[in-house]
């Protein structure tokens, strides 16, 4: 029962308020340094020239799109199996953020694809599976708010999140399993990154910034969900009292 020690919403909010200044401050710091490195310090690519700088926002956004979905799937499993009281709130709070990151990955990828590939969009396995991920996020958001009784909506959204999780390895390995226009992985690969350190470091720092941004935003949003639940409980109580 140890893991339920942090499950108490009140305790979570107090803990979140203590952590937030740190994650928030570090996020601003990492994004600032990352932005400076990626725009001013990192070199142009030998093939792609200056257009390679789009990578520093496109790749972290795409990584976060997958990471946030993985968080939602884990939270949904823990909500369905252990009825963890915070798990549903984490999933609810994460879905719009994940949708934002996915949209960003698609849009910046399009802006990168036009000059390099010669097209804004192709229906190859990688791009199509990421578009499916975007729709899964939208479906999750719609479903979790589809019922008057929020816990029913959360339950339905959790099932969708688990079913849709099958898409995450498909996205990751699509570039290896099928011939795609999108190139294979450069950073997360068995034989080490195929990207020069002068470009890898700015990318990793930007990715760290994105992750800290998500953690900070998640803490704020879960706090909001806890407060909203409290508000609903109080308005019910106020109604009963009259």
């Amino acid at each position, binding site marked *: 029962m140890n893991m339920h020690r942090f499950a108490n919403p009140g305790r979570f909010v107090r803990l979140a308020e203590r952590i937030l200044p740190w994650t928030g401050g570090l996020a601003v710091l990492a994004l600032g340094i990352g932005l400076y490195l990626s725009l001013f310090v990192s*070199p142009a*690519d*030998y093939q792609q020239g200056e257009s390679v700088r789009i990578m520093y926002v496109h790749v972290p956004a795409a990584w976060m799109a997958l990471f946030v979905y993985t968080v939602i799937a884990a939270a949904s499993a823990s909500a369905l199996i252990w009825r963890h009281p915070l798990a549903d709130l984490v999933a609810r709070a994460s879905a719009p953020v994940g949708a934002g990151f996915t949209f960003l990955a698609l849009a910046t990828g399009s802006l990168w694809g036009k000059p*390099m590939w*010669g097209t804004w969009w192709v229906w190859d396995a990688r791009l199509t599976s990421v578009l499916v991920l975007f729709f899964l996020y939208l479906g999750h958001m719609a479903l979790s708010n589809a019922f008057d009784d929020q816990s029913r909506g959360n339950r339905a959204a959790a099932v969708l999140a688990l079913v849709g999780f*099958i898409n995450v390895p498909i996205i990751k390995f699509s570039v290896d399993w099928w011939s795609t226009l999108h190139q294979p992985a450069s950073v997360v690969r068995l034989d080490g990154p195929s*990207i*020069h350190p002068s*470009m890898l470091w700015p990318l990793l720092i930007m990715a760290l910034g994105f992750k800290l941004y998500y953690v900070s935003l998640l803490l704020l949003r879960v706090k909001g969900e806890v407060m909203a639940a409290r508000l609903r409980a109080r308005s019910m109580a106020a109604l009963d009292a009259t």
Partner: protein
Amino acid sequence: MTRKRRRLYMVLAAMSILAGAAALVLGALQSELTYFYSPTDLAAGSAPAGRSIRLGGLVEEGSVERLDDGVTTSFRVTDLTSSVPVTYRGLLPDLFREGQGVVTEGSLSADGAFVAREVLAKHDENYMPREVTDALKKSGQWRDPTEATE
């Protein structure tokens, strides 16, 4: 505790069944999910004839030629085993160059040449500054992408 355990097993079982189903579906859709065919596929006749297909590979070194009309380019697409001659009328993407990846959409003509309606550049997963490639070339350690693919 037993209820929780039962729910855990149910979720695990459902997820494995789902993963199996997905693997079967994706396996069945293998050819649909393939975005392009290689020159070897074309030579072996495993690409559907007559309808519009995509051909992908590397632009063969020294094969790019601009024809006299000024808008048609001809080049060969190779996967280092076999190669296919391609003609294309129109603007080429910035990344189109010899030794780089390319995906063309069009159809095979009767004489075995590929007439492309669209040419997209495919870049590889290597990122480095120009100074590094120059230094590698100077020291003789540079591996041309055309040779590195296999």
